[in-house]
């Protein structure tokens, strides 16, 4: 097992009075793929969003506990959330490229970091698109609107956009749920490539996808972490009855 990248201790989250995450603790290793599975509303996406403090944007959320990334608790008072998010990128369920050209989408991150030199930007754009395995498809239309691409391409553009800011962790919130099987396969292949350099945490409700792509799997149910283990263990020999029921399709 690789070194621990993210260490979560007794994390609880409330939406108003609704206790959405109940004292979650887990260790997420570096440069591996960790998948969160569970029925909808189980808290897996909410939990994912606590890892780059995306829940800060929602009113009325209370969070208790610790999330340590590289041994720094990201819920400390003095944390710089903006820089945290540069380190912890995020891919959303619905691909959300900006209504700008492909180039401007990828260059968005570098530009807000103050990079304006054309040659450097060109280099970053090319490198990111190549990493996201979409360079060949878009290299001739870098200046067309990103919205003119297909759904699967758009999602890979979003991945490339996030790679362009050099994150260390990439959070993926059901990145392929809206895509066709071929696009899904491409994304999964990409995840496999990316884990060589990045720590990847993916939320999915597709158990096959979790089985195919992840090294570790965690099952959530009603705001509780039921079980977390190596993926092959979860799918072949789970410790808990609930996990067995879920993966065999008896609930959820």
């Amino acid at each position, binding site marked *: 097992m690789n070194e621990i990248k993210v260490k979560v201790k007794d994390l609880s989250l409330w939406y108003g009075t609704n206790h959405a995450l109940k004292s979650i603790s887990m260790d997420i290793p570096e440069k591996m793929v960790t998948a969160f599975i569970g029925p909808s509303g189980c808290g897996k996406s909410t939990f994912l969003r606590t890892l780059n403090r995306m829940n800060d944007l929602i009113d009325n959320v209370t969070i208790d506990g610790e999330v340590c990334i590289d041994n*720094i608790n*990201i819920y400390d008072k003095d*944390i*710089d959330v*903006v820089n945290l998010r540069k380190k912890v990128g995020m891919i959303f369920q619905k691909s959300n490229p900006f209504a700008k050209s492909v180039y401007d989408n990828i260059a968005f991150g570098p530009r807000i970091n*103050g*990079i304006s030199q054309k040659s450097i930007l060109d280099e970053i754009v090319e490198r990111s698109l190549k990493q996201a395995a979409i360079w060949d498809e878009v290299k001739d239309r870098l200046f067309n609107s990103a919205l003119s691409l297909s759904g699967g391409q758009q999602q890979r553009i979003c991945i490339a956009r996030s790679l362009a800011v050099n994150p260390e962790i990439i959070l993926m919130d059901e990145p392929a749920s809206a895509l066709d099987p071929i696009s899904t396969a491409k994304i999964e292949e990409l995840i496999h490539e990316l884990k060589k350099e990045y720590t990847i945490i993916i939320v999915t409700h597709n158990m096959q996808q979790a089985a195919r792509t992840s090294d570790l799997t965690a099952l959530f149910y009603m705001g509780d972490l039921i079980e977390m283990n190596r993926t092959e263990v979860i799918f072949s020999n789970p410790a808990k009855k609930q996990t067995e029921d879920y993966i065999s399709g008896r609930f959820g």
Partner: protein
Amino acid sequence: MARGTGKVAKSDIVTFNKKKFRFSDWFAEKVIKSVAFLSIAIVILIFVFVFREAFPIFRMDKKVAASSELMVQESYGGSDSGSTEKVADNQVGNSNKTQTPGDSPSSTLLSKTWMPVSDNPRYGMLPLFLGTLKVTLIALLFAAPLSILAAIYTSMFAKPRIREVIKPVIELLAGFPSVVIGFFALMVLASVFQNIFGYASRLNSFVGGIAMGLAAIPIIYTLTEDALTAVPKTFTEASLGLGASRRQTAFYVVLPAAVPGIFAAVVLGLGRIFGETMIALMATGNAAMISMNPFDSVRTLSATIGAEMAEVVFGDTHYNVLFLIGSLLFIFTFALNALAEFYFKNMVIRKYQSKK
């Protein structure tokens, strides 16, 4: 960015364990927050400056208090006793000040005569008040039922495609400058109505009222339509599902549920009519007289300001009185808006909650 302007090379590890001070963000937030306060500041400034110019009327009152002893009795319906007492209190201290001949301006404020430009100017606002009230009533009686009925048709009976046409067309009326409506009333409505009703003065409160009603129609219509559409669909569907007709659903289910919203619409329409200046100036005849006859000329509060402000001397009593009228208009529309905003809105919220 405080220091992020350099290249972000891979080795330049982004640290997040300490809050960074980002000047542009800090500055933008400060600017945005301060500018947002401007709206509040403007409202307060309007209060302050309109009242400030109106205020001397009461000070002048003190100056001439001694000479006005007799006149106080003359004031209409008894100006409120509190201020009379104050006047009396101040008499001793001020009696040696310059005394203006004639009535004290404030003592005439409640009289029946508006004659600001004369040797013995009289600033009786009563005819202006009653005139405004009369025109407003006519306008509201015309505009409110018409707009509400039209809104009911639009939201309850019209087919979606027809609704898509009706709504923008009626809302076009909101884009007519009031001077255009005033011109139409002055040139067309006045003659048409004169032919129909055969009254003597061509411009009168009826013509003015109808024209001002036109200005209020889009407000009342749009807000009523919104209120009707805001009634939860489940209400309508339940009613229709029970076999009620569209009309029965409209009158027994949707309309009662939307009443607070419709009230708010009428109140805001009222505010618009009350403060309307150009139409009043052009179509009401502008004679400050007290009469119940809808076909007599009137002079409204706002038209008085519009017509006379350009001719008064800066800082003159007449000037102050016009600002006093402005203050009253402002307080009144402010109160109407607050009423629509807080009272009726709360009613709407309570209504839907209790039915949940």
